[in-house]
């Protein structure tokens, strides 16, 4: 019984962690202030 509880705890923590990280995701950021280029840049 104690083994089952230990295994269930491990599984629950893994599920909670992955679901939380996936739900948080990454921030969208901002639109770059740089323009669409109309001259040939000298370097990247």
């Amino acid at each position, binding site marked *: 019984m104690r083994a089952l509880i230990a295994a269930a705890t491990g599984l629950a923590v*893994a599920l909670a962690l992955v679901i939380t990280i996936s739900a948080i995701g990454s921030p969208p950021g901002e639109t*770059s202030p*740089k323009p669409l*280029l109309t001259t*040939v840049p000298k370097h990247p």
Partner: protein
Amino acid sequence: MRRKASLILLALAVFCTAMSPLMRWYAFPRLAKIPAGQYQNAVLEAKNPTLLDYGSMQSKKVPKVTVVQTLKGNVEASEQVEKSAGRDVVVWDSLSYIVGPDGKMVSQVPERYVFDAHSQAPVHPTGKYAETVDGDKVRRDGIEFKWPFLTEKRDYEYYDAQARVTRPIHYKGTRTFRGLKVYYFEQTIPWMKVPLPKTMPVKGITPESVAKTGTTRWYTTVRKFWVEPVTGAPVYGEEIQHNELRGGTLLGGRDKVTVFAGHVKMREDYIRSTVDLVKSNRVLVVLLTSTLPWGFLILGLLLLALSLWLEARSRRPGEPEAAPEHEPQPVSA
């Protein structure tokens, strides 16, 4: 004590073993996405191409034509489209700006490309944020600029902005490019009648004025991409393109005139910078799809083995720590 340790190890073993598939098949598809605010540019050059001089309407060889391509993620537009689409969306405003040997503009084609941030599947918003090419609303039924994460060895549907059609781009094999394993793709667009660009290089000449003469523009291209399969990012691209004006009164009795004919290749410094960028992005994707899932699985199995070993030792008779949890019962004869 050993019993408690084996239970803790068992919980950790299950945690790690569960993290392996969860990371690969739950977290990765949700976490791997194109950032909405990405900004990127590339420079491509055609050496010794044929270019039409609109002043004299004569085609001639020129030393070089340069294509400056900019992709700019429009975060505000993507947030608006996401509200109706109900999924993560990227809106790229792009500009292909073509510069002649004298540094003057030859042509420019602005585009708006809207796609799913995870799968790169095209999204078709309407109204203000509709996808466009050169100001005209279009519908893309394939990818453009980038392949999906974990690109497969198969043909994809690819959108051609000049012809405004979606056609297959064929997988032609696996190659090594600058130390990276890449998939090589090739697409041929046969001769097609295409719209004239809205911005022409000579003042006074407009698509409408050309159309009145009965002259039409025709185009064919062979498009080549070397795609890094983990990120789906092209690390190199080439295009062998031909543009012609055909028929009508504008050509002075000639059947056709070449507008542009050349082999466009990515400039060397941009190849290096793209390869470096893809190499660094690749590390993150590999971490989520391979390193972490396999690492967790191996660690989970090791912890499970350790837990079982401790448990077995705790039950071995004659060891002080392995004392039974309950008092031994007398056996009746």
